């Protein structure tokens, strides 16, 4: 057994995220009787290290128990090549242990902890040995949607928790805390927005902007509370709106997780997320009161990538050149955005010059073109 390699990163500045998650959610019900002989694989996560007890497992189901010994909220991922998320567990607050069950075919993977929930994370190798059964074309597509649905599940779990924290802060009149939580809760929403948009009537209630509200419909949801917080600076009457947001989010999460997605929807969803960036975030229209558009930008980009990576095995087989282009352009878009990182979060939209916004716009257009070709490849 090799010693797991530990990558040490510099301490990230404490930003908005650091103090936002005081109430520890109850640990995910773990698979106590794991298929793994000898119990779950222990992962010791801190702000600077990610020590996985083993770097080699047998093909099949593995369970990881991730303990956060650091001071920042962390996440744990198992990636297949190309950063395809095989499994992840979000929102592990300091002091908490959460379990992750993942089914891995033989191959080479990476584990990653993401203290502060940002960046590429602290990576380590993971080799899975044993029989590998090649999937048929249909099975590969089925695996892609299953993989993406796991992603939706993990994002919606975190969305529920973070929206609750946000709503609680609003109702408690803790404006600064609510403002810090606003872009964080929205991150999980924005990553999976195309799934949410399937439910046409709920989406505008949760995420509708002021001008799209129809006659006879009340302005509710995230952006209404955003206006209350940033423009009116008064949330004393926002309680009912906050409660409705929570109820609507719960409803949509339930629907999103019971929705059966098609591979075509994955491809289109990846494109739609980038369209969201191009039309709403680059221009600062989405979060016009808080100017936290770059948080949504990062989330849309991450969600688009998750969708593409879920399809990766199919794309690699059918359009290897496209995969290369996608890798290059995703990396370029991420690098362009990375220039605007501030602490654990992002600069405000109104802190960017027009030239800087144009650079982001160009990067998104360069990426969205190859992404728009995915659906046709999947449909072949």
């Amino acid at each position, binding site marked *: 057994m090799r010693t797991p390699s530990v990558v040490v990163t510099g301490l990230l500045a404490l930003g908005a995220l650091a103090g936002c998650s005081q109430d520890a959610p109850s640990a995910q019900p773990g698979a106590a009787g794991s298929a793994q002989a000898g119990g779950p694989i222990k992962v010791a996560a801190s702000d600077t290290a990610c020590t996985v007890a083993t770097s080699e497992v047998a093909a099949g189901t593995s369970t990881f128990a991730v303990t956060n010994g650091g001071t920042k909220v962390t996440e744990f991922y198992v990636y297949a090549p190309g950063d395809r998320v095989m499994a992840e567990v979000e929102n592990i607050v300091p002091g908490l242990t959460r379990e992750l069950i993942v089914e891995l075919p033989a191959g080479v993977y990476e584990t990653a902890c993401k203290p502060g929930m940002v960046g590429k994370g602290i990576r380590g190798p993971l080799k899975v040995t044993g029989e590998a059964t090649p999937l048929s074309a249909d099975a590969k597509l089925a695996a892609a949607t299953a993989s993406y649905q796991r992603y939706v599940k993990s994002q919606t779990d975190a969305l529920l928790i973070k929206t609750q924290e946000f709503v609680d802060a609003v109702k408690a009149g803790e404006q600064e805390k609510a403002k810090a939580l606003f872009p964080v809760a929205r991150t999980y929403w924005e990553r999976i927005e195309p799934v949410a948009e399937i439910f046409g009537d709920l989406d505008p209630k949760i995420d509708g902007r002021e001008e799209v509200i129809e*006659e006879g419909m009340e302005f509710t949801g995230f952006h209404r509370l955003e206006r209350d917080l940033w423009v009116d600076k008064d949330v004393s009457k926002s309680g009912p709106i906050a409660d409705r947001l929570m109820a609507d989010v719960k409803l949509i999460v339930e629907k999103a997780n019971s929705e059966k997605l098609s591979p075509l929807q994955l491809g*289109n969803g990846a494109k739609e997320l980038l*369209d969201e960036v*191009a039309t709403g975030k*680059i*221009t600062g229209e989405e979060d016009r009161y808080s100017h936290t558009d770059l948080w949504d930008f990062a989330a849309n980009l991450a969600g688009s990538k998750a969708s593409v990576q879920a399809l990766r095995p199919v794309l690699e087989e059918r359009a290897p050149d496209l995969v290369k282009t996608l890798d290059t352009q995703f990396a370029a878009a991420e690098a362009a955005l990375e220039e605007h990182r501030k602490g654990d979060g992002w600069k405000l939209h109104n802190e960017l010059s*027009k030239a800087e916004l144009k650079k982001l*716009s160009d990067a998104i*257009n360069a990426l969205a073109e190859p992404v*728009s070709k995915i659906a046709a490849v999947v449909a072949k």
Partner: protein
Amino acid sequence: MSGVSRRKLLGLGAAGVAAAGASVAGARMLLDEPAPMPVSAVSALDSVAFYGEHQAGIATPAQDRLHFAAFDVITTKRSELDALLQEWTAAAARMTQGQEAGTFGAVGGVPEAPPDDTGEALGLPASGLTLTIGFGASLFDGRFGLAGRKPAALRELPRFPGDALLPELSGGDLCVQACANDPQVAVHAIRNLARIGFGRVSARYSQLGFGRTSSTSRTQATPRNLMGFKDGTANLKLEDTAMLRDHLWVAEKDGPAWMRGGTYLVTRKIRMHIETWDRTSLAEQEAIFGRDKGEGAPLGLAKEFDEPDFAKKGPDGAPLIGEVAHVRLAHPSSNGGARLLRRGYNYVDGSDGLGRLDAGLFFMSYQRDPHRQFVPVQRALAKNDVLNEYIKHISSGLFAIPPGVRDGGDYWGRALFA
């Protein structure tokens, strides 16, 4: 040189005049209306009659180019406004016939004076130029004693979901629509009118359109918008005389009297998110419009002018033309029979500084009552149209379009100021 037709300078006279004469006779039979009246120029170079019962530039076959301008009246004197309209009318009557804006012209005046025509249209034919004036609601605010004469149909349009209107690109006391088959001719006309107006009016905004998106005659093919689709196939056309009477022209009973034979113009500048549209699959584009992209036929049918069959279902049991497809939502049958005479133009205002084309549709529709025709259609579109993901309405205007100028003794708005 004074009074010389620019077209005659080119020596293109006779054939064009004969052709125009033939078209007058033909169109008169179709329309069953007394002469003189605005008719189509048969050749793209010809002139369109300025005098008539209705203003030209409405039920005139849509020309290829647009320069639209809205003005704020800055004088506070009614007499100055009245005088301006008389001067504008005289200049418009000349320019639409291929003549210069003033009597001396670009080069015929005294050398010490600036020319009374700016000169960039010298040597160019009339090019089908029409000039159409409109009065905005703000003209009736009391500054000129017109408050009591405001038509009920000129009341403010409601706010539609998704509206992102820029006040500086919306409204206006006066508007002039210049349409021509040569962009230089259209620009020349607006430029000279603006110049005549200095001190009395100030240009509020103006819009160039480079390609017509509507056909207003059965002799014209339906052009394409910047999304690549034929849209507005069910447009009112000048040959539909009875329908124009019912849906376009203000009748005596509609009131007020000064508007009889006039109509109302709605303008909407609709920015298109061209880049995201272009990476949308063909199937989705067609589903959004409810038409096939090649022929323009309603989905499930073969030809553009086939009447859409909204009940027809595909093999999966869903309607071939979706419940929220553009063609269904905008169709008269979905809007209590409401019909419009659409006369919009594609525009590209360069790039937007973010690496994207600043482009879209400058929508214009003429109708007898905007609140009973445009409003229900736009309400349905704003609420449900899947196209909204790719467009944004950024300006809005509503203008009363007075009837035509009868003859040389008449002028734009005379009945209003009488």
